[in-house]
């Protein structure tokens, strides 16, 4: 715990120092990044020790108002803490360089970043409701401040507002949840909390409250708006880390609520399926890289929720081994997604900085200009598509294993598992399609508009490289993962992961993964040998006989995704603006399709509009003469007197 506290204080001190130094941009950013790195160096070993079985550590205090508070490091917390500290340190390092290069005032950014890391670390470590909620809301506020860095742009402001308001609505549910828990068990400490009679209702509160933060469908509307407008290292951090706190909260709440009915797990599974499918489908319809990545966060949260849902359902049906696999998949995917999604956002940020745009149909051919960024982006793309031998595959495999295990539960769970299997398979295919589209449109082919792009500086590439290396390492780690996940899973499922015996699977997956790399390399070198003697010729791409191919004639990202979008148009409701050909010699033609979110378009926006109109009507109808004011007092008096006096 000492190390953990040292890490927390490193964050706090660096935030303070960064704030005090805010006049010197360089110093301030360096201090901020330094704090995050120091926290990672101090905190990760401590948390890792916890994963390997060090005794649980906690500190407690009592506030003057009599509320008990505590911080505790248990395996579940340790797992998240490692992810948080690792990714945040890399994002901070990247952010230092990219903010320096941006040339605009950094305002609070340097101070806010260590602070939000601190808040998230406390969220994870909190062992009482009040500390948890405070850190939770602090995290919301700070992420809002980080997102609205470039608040001169109207879209940034509206996205920030949407984020703040929706996540706060979620927090209201959490306030209710913890207030009920605290009153029914008479303590704010997690250790003493017992769920009252209907845990399902409380679980619903938790699902909504944490679901909003996690960006689960249908509470996701804020996510694709807010993540793209933030500075890239912040987007990376939000997508990689902040939304995962929703998952952490859900897991923690399930521990607090004790045995839950099976339907809770199945509802979560359903939310997961919906999030995963709709997330990836919406991503396909996107034309902007960071928005596309943001929708993929929804997809991956869906996968995590599927694992969690199976875990909870299996737990309630007394199949701890299946539950262990589900939770293991969820936990590992939390970390994996944190790694590759932040890698992708950081790479996208480098592209945005180099080209000034992230519109897929304006980019292209960047691989030649930004080879390292391209390599890392492609690596991240393969990882997020769940392709072996990278880390995304391993966690998806664990989720698959748990779903297969769930095929032997009750009929309802079986049905859920079948649907989820089909959905997860489809999601895998669609994600690969979408990332083929993104990688292809940005890095491959030739530039669609002329840009003078340069490779990102080394200080930005290095954090990305570390993330990429971590993706590969986890993909090849094999049974080591079982060791790492053993205790967190035991905490959630009641039995350690090894009781579900995934060691063999992971061992073979790692071995085959290594063999895959080796054989691909062998084939590559074999071909080189063959071609050594006969030097290959160079020519333009075969244009199928057309003599004057131009870069603008390349297949665009939009057309690439069109067949899939067309298949799923009943789910996506794309908005279409068409200027169709008229007459014999049509002149202007145009076709635009926007994948505007159906939840936003048909539910949220109309509701907000209706509310605003209704309120405005009441406001206008309210008289402003003093006579009416007095009448209101008079009426209140008579009503209360008549009501109050028997």
């Amino acid at each position, binding site marked *: 715990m000492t190390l953990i506290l040292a890490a927390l204080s490193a964050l706090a001190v660096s935030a303070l120092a960064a704030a005090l130094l805010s006049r010197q941009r360089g110093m301030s950013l360096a201090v901020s990044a330094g704090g995050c790195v120091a926290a990672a160096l101090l905190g990760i070993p401590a948390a890792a020790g916890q994963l390997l079985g060090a005794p649980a550590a906690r500190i407690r205090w009592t506030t003057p108002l009599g509320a008990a508070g505590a911080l505790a490091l248990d395996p579940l917390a340790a797992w998240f803490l490692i992810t948080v500290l690792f990714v945040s340190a890399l994002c901070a390092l990247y952010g230092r360089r990219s903010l320096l290069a941006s040339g605009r005032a950094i305002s609070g950014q340097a101070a806010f970043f260590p602070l939000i890391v601190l808040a998230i670390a406390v969220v994870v470590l909190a062992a009482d409701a009040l500390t948890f909620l405070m850190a939770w809301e602090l995290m919301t506020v700070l992420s809002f401040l980080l997102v609205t860095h470039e608040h001169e742009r109207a879209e940034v402001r509206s996205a920030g507002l949407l984020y703040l308001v929706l996540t*706060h609505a979620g927090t209201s549910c959490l306030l209710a949840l913890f207030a009920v828990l605290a009153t029914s068990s008479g303590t704010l400490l997690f250790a003493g909390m017992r769920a009252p009679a209907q845990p399902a209702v409380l679980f619903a509160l938790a699902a909504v409250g944490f679901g909003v933060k996690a960006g689960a469908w249908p509470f996701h509307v804020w996510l694709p708006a807010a993540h793209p407008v933030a500075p890239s290292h912040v987007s990376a951090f939000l997508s990689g880390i902040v939304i995962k706190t929703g998952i952490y909260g859900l897991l923690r709440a399930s521990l607090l609520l004790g045995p839950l009915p099976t339907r809770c797990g199945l509802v979560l599974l359903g939310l997961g399926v919906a999030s995963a499918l709709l997330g990836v489908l919406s991503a396909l319809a996107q034309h902007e890289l960071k928005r596309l990545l943001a929708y993929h966060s929804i997809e991956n949260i869906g996968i995590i929720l599927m694992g969690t849902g199976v875990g909870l359902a299996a737990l309630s049906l007394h199949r701890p081994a299946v539950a262990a696999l589900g939770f293991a998949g969820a936990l590992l995917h939390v970390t994996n997604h944190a790694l590759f999604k932040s890698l992708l956002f950081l790479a996208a940020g480098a592209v945005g900085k180099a080209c000034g745009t992230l519109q897929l149909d304006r980019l292209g051919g960047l691989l030649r200009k930004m080879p390292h960024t391209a390599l890392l982006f492609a690596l991240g793309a393969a990882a997020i598509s769940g392709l072996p031998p990278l880390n995304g595959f391993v966690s998806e495999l664990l989720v698959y294993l748990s779903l297969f295990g769930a095929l032997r539960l009750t009929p309802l769970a079986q049905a859920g598992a079948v649907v989820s299997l089909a959905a997860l398979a489809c999601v895998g295919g669609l994600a690969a399609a979408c990332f083929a589209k993104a990688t292809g449109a940005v890095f491959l082919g030739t530039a669609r508009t002329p840009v003078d792009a340069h490779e990102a500086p080394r200080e930005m590439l290095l954090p990305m490289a570390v993330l990429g290396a971590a993706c590969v390492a986890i993909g090849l780690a094999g049974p080591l993962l079982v060791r790492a996940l053993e205790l967190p899973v035991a905490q959630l499922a009641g039995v350690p992961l090894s009781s579900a015996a995934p060691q063999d699977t992971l061992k073979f997956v790692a071995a085959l993964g290594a063999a895959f790399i080796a054989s691909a390399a062998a084939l590559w070198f074999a071909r080189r040998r063959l071609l050594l003697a006969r030097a290959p010729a160079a020519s333009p791409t075969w244009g199928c006989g057309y003599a004057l191919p131009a870069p603008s004639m390349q297949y665009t990202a939009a057309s690439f995704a069109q067949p899939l979008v067309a298949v799923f148009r009943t789910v996506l409701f794309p908005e279409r603006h068409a200027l169709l050909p008229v007459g014999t010699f049509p002149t202007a033609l145009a076709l635009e399709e926007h994948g505007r979110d159906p939840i936003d378009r048909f539910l949220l926006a109309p509701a907000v509009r209706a509310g605003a109109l209704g309120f405005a009507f009441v406001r206008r109808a309210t008289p402003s003469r003093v006579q009416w004011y007095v009448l209101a007092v008079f009426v209140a008096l008579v009503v209360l007197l008549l009501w109050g006096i028997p």
Partner: protein
Amino acid sequence: MLATLLLLPALAAAGSWPLKSDRARVQLFRAVAAAHLLIVLAMWNLPPGQLFDGSLALDAPGLLILTLSSLLFAGVAVYLGGYLARAEQRPLRIFVAALLALLFAVSLVCCCQHMGLFWVAIETSTLAAAPLLFFHHSGRALEATWKYLIVGSVGIALALLGTVFLAVAATNSAGETTLWLSDLRAGHALAKPWLHASFVLLLIGYGTKMGLAPMHAWKPDAYGEAPPPVAGLLAGAVTSVAFLGVLRATSICVRAGESAYASSLLVLLGLVSMGVAAVFIVGQSDYRRLLAYSSVEHMGILVFGLGFGIAGAQGALLHVLSNALTKGALFLVAGNLLQLYGTSAMSSVEGVLRRAPVSGALLVIGLFAALGLPPFGLFISEFTILRASLAGGAPAWPAALYLGFLAVTFLGMCAAVLPMAQGASPESGPAREPLSTIVPPAVFAAAVLVLGVWVPQPIAKAIAAAARQLGMS
């Protein structure tokens, strides 16, 4: 000591009248406010004693709210220097005298241990505030003052009636009665119908002064037209002392074994206030009126919390402190904005963070504090109240409505204030912000922060002692 505390502003009010220069008047006010604050702070350590057989004495809630008011006055006194220097020049004779009279009245309210005297003190504060509202002498200020006076007077008249009813309720078989708080709370047999009627009247009466809906209508008009520092005093100090009235009435009711009755009314009025405020906050176009409605909302939270026993009262008392400081800070910032942009229409205010970085930051901080976000004190108090509202198997709908209204208000406030703070500024460089106009709101905000992170021990003790008055003896 108590006598000094009360005489100081009263004499200063009289003494400021013949002074030659307005400058000297403001200096006098500053000195008195500072001395007042010092005396009040000293009272935390030295028992202040009592006056007139104990008609005037300080108990825990009185001391809390007195300290709060004194702090607000001191802050506004510092602020006024910078504000008036840039404001429209007007003679300050009446203004300063009224300010000092208000300070006197507010201090008096906090010390009253007799419900009749309490009423007199509150009425005095109402009257003392009227010239402050009318400071700008414009047609709009006139209208606001008139509305304030009429609605406030009707309300306060009802409170007087409530006080009379209380005395009737306390009449014993020997024909003797009392309005001493200690007697009323001692478990005297109180006549139930009269007590009920009295509670309704006191709640409506002091509720009007607090600005509970539906008696709140004067509030946006008054706060919207008063000079912002005055609005800050009204929203911070005057509403808090009015709340003290509701607190006293509730404690009497609870001790008489009528806590269920009192709770139902308090919760009802609290929720109505929060609901009405939410409706009027969403889409509001004037930031000073917005703050007024936010004040209505927080007054609703206060009485809502009061409806839930000791725990709720503890939350409400903490809320009174945090809310008053937050409102003080926000109105002072609003004053800066008004002077900078010359209008209180939100549509004309944009990019404050760029144009006046400190005021902008304070605006955002104040907003977050007012919305009950951590690490500010209102988060703790709102959560405490929420917990209290769910305790003991109480029905969940009040808590659900409470959370719902809070969420709608959150939406409205954010949508209104954030676009003011953020965005590009039309002017090139940041404007000059004199220290005296930013230090007081910053101090208030810092105090709210402290209340959210670690409530100082003496304050926590005082809150606990005050909340115990809301329990059965």
